[in-house]
């Protein structure tokens, strides 16, 4: 398949890839924002003392992590209408990705928070900060530093998972490659081009992660305890 690799056909299909790329980008960006929101709420619930919040949060996280996105997508797309909610494909897609990824993000954030030495929490408590202030000024900035790498990992998983949305007729990057593969029977051209674009997105994300790492940055060197 490689010896007749046709760059010309790829160029011909570039506009289609471009459209797909744009859709993938904004779709994933919105979904990841949603996933962060869902994840933070779930992690906060999961870290409460009371069972009232902890139990449902744990149950949700486990259920979502233990089942495939495909089944969840089916539930939202075909199941919700039976309960009387008919939502547009894009909304269902973003919802599915956010709810799915949120469960993973929640675990990442929880691990990050638990990695903060207890002395830090105590210092915040002792200076009279409220729970929210402690979270905001002391714990989350330090937790984010440890969670940036796994969050980047989750983000790229989400970007790639968004390809599943072509099942419910959302046309994104992968679909463009599949079209090239099925119209022209050029699977190598189609898939390798997709891979190149995803790689581009990956490096973009990595750059963003590095930037935000610097944002929360602190010198490693000697520890303070």
């Amino acid at each position, binding site marked *: *398949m490689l010896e007749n690799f046709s760059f010309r056909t790829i160029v011909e299909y570039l506009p289609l890839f471009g459209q797909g790329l744009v859709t993938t980008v904004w779709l994933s960006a919105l979904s990841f924002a949603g996933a962060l929101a869902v994840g933070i709420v779930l992690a906060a619930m999961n870290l409460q003392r009371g069972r009232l919040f902890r139990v449902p949060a744990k149950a949700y996280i486990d259920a979502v992590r233990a089942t495939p996105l495909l089944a969840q997508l089916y539930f939202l*797309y*075909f199941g919700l*209408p*039976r309960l009387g909610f*008919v939502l547009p*494909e894009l909304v269902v897609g973003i919802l599915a990705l956010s709810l799915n990824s949120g469960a993973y993000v929640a675990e990442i954030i929880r691990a990050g928070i638990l990695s903060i030495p207890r002395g830090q929490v105590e210092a915040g408590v002792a200076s009279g900060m409220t729970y929210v202030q402690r979270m905001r000024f002391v714990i989350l900035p330090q937790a984010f530093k440890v969670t940036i790498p796994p969050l980047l990992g989750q983000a790229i998983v989400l970007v790639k998972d968004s390809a599943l949305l*072509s*099942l*419910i*007729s959302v*046309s994104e990057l992968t*679909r463009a490659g*599949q*079209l090239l*593969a*099925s*119209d*022209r*029977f*050029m*699977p*190598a051209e189609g*898939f390798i081009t997709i891979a190149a674009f995803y790689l581009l997105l990956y490096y973009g994300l990595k750059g963003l992660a590095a930037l935000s790492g610097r944002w929360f940055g602190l010198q490693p060197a000697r520890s303070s305890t």
Partner: protein
Amino acid sequence: SAGTLDDITKRGELRVAVQTQGPPFSLVGANGERTGSSVELAELMAKEMGVKITFLDFDWDGLIPALLSGKADLLVADMTPTLARGMKVAFTKPYMYTGSTVFTKADSKFKTTEDCKAKGTKIAVLLGATGEKEAKTAFPDADIKSYKGGGPLLLDAINNGQADCGVNDVSAVKGQSTAYPAGSFTIMPDLLSKEPLAFATRYDEPDLLVWMNLFLDQVSVDGRLQKNLDYWVNSDAWKKDH
């Protein structure tokens, strides 16, 4: 050098890539057996060659690469031999003609193909299938939704109200709708197009291509092709057996 047919004879095995895209062409029956119109034709080919048959069951993404990379000798799926595709693989003569049809839910307000031309109608098609292109020309004002995942998903989308009308290969629609209670869907009598279906192999296997065409000629002449199509495609006789 020895041709593909010699290779096949030597290894005693014909490797056929199938897609299992659903009734009536290729499906997994109630007892887990692989069957369908195309599948039986392929089995017939192997029988005529005097070798055993091995099915390689890929999903759509893997089908063409399997043929092009030589993992499979030939490809048996309900594929339309377009000119663009013909640049890459060698199609046999068409062995049957079908076409895309429009279908709706039985109690829907869309009763005819004309109804579906209204602006904003949601039309479900299969990603990359010929139906997708035809829908775009036939319903320029409609909202075309391309699903990936096979014909049954289209029926599901129509049944659940995610789309108003579906466009897909008529034989597929007929075959697949039998899984629903009778009368669930209205299938429009008119076809949007006439489409040939063909098998495919590689251009570096001219001997196999010649043989396959010969095979198709033979089975049309001796009626075995017609019998197959009558059983699988032109009726739902197969339903009681599988």
